[in-house]
């Protein structure tokens, strides 16, 4: 617990209305979109400018107060949960789009801008920022960078780190530092912007972001293919890519969430199938048309039903059904354990088969969804943490799934980050020397361990002093 004196000081620093302390406020900042973790902060503060962040961090650093930076709180790693209490530094009110520059193909924003609002502003200029985490409706740009977010479009366009040109970051000491710049090419010293991109709020607080943009593709086409066998769907994805076409998105949902597709696809097909692939191609109209034909022809060899959306409205419905997957599956069980492994594309079918076997062995329901085009999967194990025996089996299955992904040459987290949720697997998934380097970098930048403490790696007993 921090003292009343500290809270008074924060009020004095950034103004009464930007400091929240009621029991209701603290509860509302105790969670993110995960369901196994929560912890209340002692105070929630809303900085309005970089200067505010500097002063808050300087004070927190001098007094050893934990600070957890947070945007929309839509992350699914536990990353924005103030697990050690202290200050939640909520960036939602720093939400100005400072500049969108069509000539430079870049934009500069404050960290609290909501991704969807950013994309709406870009669309007016015919521009496009590709990363599209499925929390786009509420997630903020600071979080997008700090979590190095992905999403469906990353198959063709890459993840957030491919778009970060420049950052302003406030260090634990309160000092603000400018990194990178406005240009797509920049070979000045170490790539320090990459250190903070994906740092999960543990190394500094991102206070300004310059992003590379792309011209919005003039047209796109969505198609869906329905399969009766999960592994066949995986193999079809490999065939599409091997045929020399790179769709902007290839997404995968299994029959746990077919309800969202009722009315869009025939019941008879849905009732007898296991998987839907949603595929989008984009670019110039002629290319889109040719690629659509090519992909549809490949899918027709293996799928029970292939449908090309007739108009934007139909396409939107498919994507809405896809976006709703996480929430939909979450509502099917008291507790879900949602993983985020990524495997090399050619191992997709192996990964699914082996994971299904594991789920059968442990007798737990499993659902798969994800960005299958780039091998990034969200296997979800459905369980109930009130039922200790079931929950234990579920965790065993999750552990095995991760082992399967790693043994196939994959990684522990494709896009969600480690946060709290995946730290127990970190030692297995990362070279111990690399973990040690991370800890040293953390110590160099945040010697008093005030920034988002308790995240990414498990603390050894002597580290956990709060």
């Amino acid at each position, binding site marked *: 617990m921090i003292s009343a004196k500290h809270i008074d000081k924060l009020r004095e620093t950034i103004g009464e209305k930007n400091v*929240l302390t*009621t*029991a*209701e*406020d603290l*509860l*509302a*900042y105790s*969670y*993110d*979109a*995960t*369901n196994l973790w929560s912890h209340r902060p002692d105070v929630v503060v*809303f900085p309005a400018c970089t200067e505010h962040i500097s002063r808050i961090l300087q004070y927190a650093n001098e007094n050893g107060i934990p600070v957890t930076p947070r945007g*929309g*709180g*839509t992350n699914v790693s536990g990353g924005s949960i103030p697990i050690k209490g202290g200050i939640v530094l*909520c960036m*939602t*009110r720093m*939400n100005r789009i400072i500049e969108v520059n069509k000539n430079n193909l870049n934009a500069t924003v404050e960290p*609290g801008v*909501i991704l*969807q609002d950013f994309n709406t502003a870009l669309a007016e200029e015919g521009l496009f920022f590709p990363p599209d985490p499925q*929390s786009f*409706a*509420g*997630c903020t740009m600071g979080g997008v960078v700090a979590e190095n977010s992905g999403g469906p479009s990353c198959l063709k366009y890459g993840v957030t780190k491919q778009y970060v040109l420049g950052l302003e970051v406030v260090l634990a000491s309160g000092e603000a530092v400018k990194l990178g710049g406005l240009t797509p090419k920049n070979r000045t010293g170490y790539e320090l912007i990459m250190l903070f991109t994906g740092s999960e709020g543990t190394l500094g607080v991102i206070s300004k972001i310059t992003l590379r943009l792309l011209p919005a593709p003039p047209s796109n086409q969505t198609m869906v293919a329905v399969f009766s066998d999960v592994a066949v769907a995986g193999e079809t994805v490999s065939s599409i890519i091997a045929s020399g076409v790179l769709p902007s998105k290839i997404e995968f949902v299994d029959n746990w969430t077919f309800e969202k597709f009722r009315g869009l696809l025939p019941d008879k097909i849905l009732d007898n199938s296991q998987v839907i692939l949603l595929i989008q191609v984009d670019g110039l109209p002629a290319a889109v048309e040719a690629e659509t034909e090519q992909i549809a022809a490949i899918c027709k060899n293996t799928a029970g039903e292939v449908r090309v959306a007739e108009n934007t409205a139909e396409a939107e419905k498919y994507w809405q059904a896809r*976006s*709703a*997957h*996480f*929430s*939909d599956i*979450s*509502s099917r069980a*008291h507790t879900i354990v949602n993983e985020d492994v990524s495997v090399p594309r050619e191992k997709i079918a192996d990964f699914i088969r082996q994971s299904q076997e594991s789920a059968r062995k442990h007798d737990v329901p499993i659902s798969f969804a994800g960005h299958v085009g780039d091998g990034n999967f969200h296997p979800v194990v459905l369980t109930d943490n009130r039922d200790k025996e079931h929950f234990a089996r579920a965790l065993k299955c999750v552990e095995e799934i991760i082992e399967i992904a790693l043994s196939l040459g994959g990684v522990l987290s494709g896009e969600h980050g480690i946060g709290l949720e995946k730290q127990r697997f970190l030692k297995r998934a990362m070279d111990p020397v690399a973990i040690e380097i991370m800890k040293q970098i953390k110590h160099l930048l945040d010697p008093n361990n005030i920034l988002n403490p308790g995240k990414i790696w498990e603390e050894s007993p002597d580290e956990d002093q709060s």
Partner: protein
Amino acid sequence: MKTNLDYAQLSKRREELDKCTKCGFCMSYCPVYQEELTETSVARGKIMLVRALLDGDLTLTDEMENQLNKCTLCMACAENCPAYTDVPALITAARADRTDKQGLPYAYRFIYRWLLPRRQLFGYAVKIASWFQGIFLPKTKGTIRHLAMFLSALGKGRHIPEIAPRFLRQSVPEVNLPPEGVKTTVTLGYFTGCMTDFVFPELGKKIISFLTNNGVEVIVPRGQGCCGAPVFLGAGDFTTGRKMADSNVRAFKDVDYIITDCATCASAMKDYAKYLADTPERAEEYAAFGAKVKDITEFLVDILQLPAEAYRVAPEYRGKTVTWHEPCHLGRHLGVKEQPRKILESLPDIQYVEMPDADRCCGMAGAFSIKHYDLSRKIAEKKIASIDSTGADIVVTDCPGCEIQLIDGITRKNMPQKVMHIMELFE
């Protein structure tokens, strides 16, 4: 540690409460969150607060009450919730438990429990207030004045139309037959609602004549009262709400259709069964009553199926550009989205333009706009900007509450648009 039984209404909706998966999609849709940008404003935050209340982790503090009140029940979150969480039902249940445990402040108790259910007396109170209004308050330009005294104490100087000198119920007979030569095809009950009765009686007369001219016998039952929306949805007073529901059910027991010109009234009356049915008899009665309730545009398009030529635009509005504000209670709560647009698009004498985000909440939401007036105004500003962008001469809608909010916002911005009910367009 509190037990679940302390919160009877919330306990009943435990399953609904657990549907929320905290994904945060609601942030993108919640008009309150978009102004405040704090987690307690948005559906996810409120649900977590209510869950904590039920689990005994939080108590009914002033701040909890403040947060429960700070929701327009616009339903935008619920409509877009991937987990199908009925957020308005949870907020309403929490308000009911709050009122059950803590009662209502004196002024509200007086108005809601005592005055509103007594229709005749409420009419006199409004009348007296309007009389004082003329004496004590300066008149503002045109038809707009500061609101009557007893409401202005709550309304902080909002610009709204004056109270009518003669109420609708005093101006029309109980039974209104089609004119001679026009065959009666259907008989319905007209639920006038407080606003049409006391503030916009001319609208009521227009609706009655429109309907009778089209072969409808219109009954205006004298026994009808307030729909109860501010009482059971706004203040969470289910006990009084039930009394109001019972008297409305009685007043309309002999008709097959009940039409309203107010989406809020229609939606509240359809909600009797959902919130107020405490016995199997009431459940049955309220469900049957709710099934008869139709919004006026829904009735005209779906039931009466009037031909396009039945809608004759009044001469003074011909040639005008008209835009449509979709009330939350009409579009999301009642699911009436197409019907008013169908009417507007069919009119050859006006130019219809759809405003951006026509279904976005205007921020009125009854008592919400009184308790959180500044917030309500900020929400309205986005709506007013949408209206401005259309260049329309007239904004029509289907909810007198929304009308008041739009008039207020447009007047503040010195914009030229006339705000009116969709039915006022016609001869």
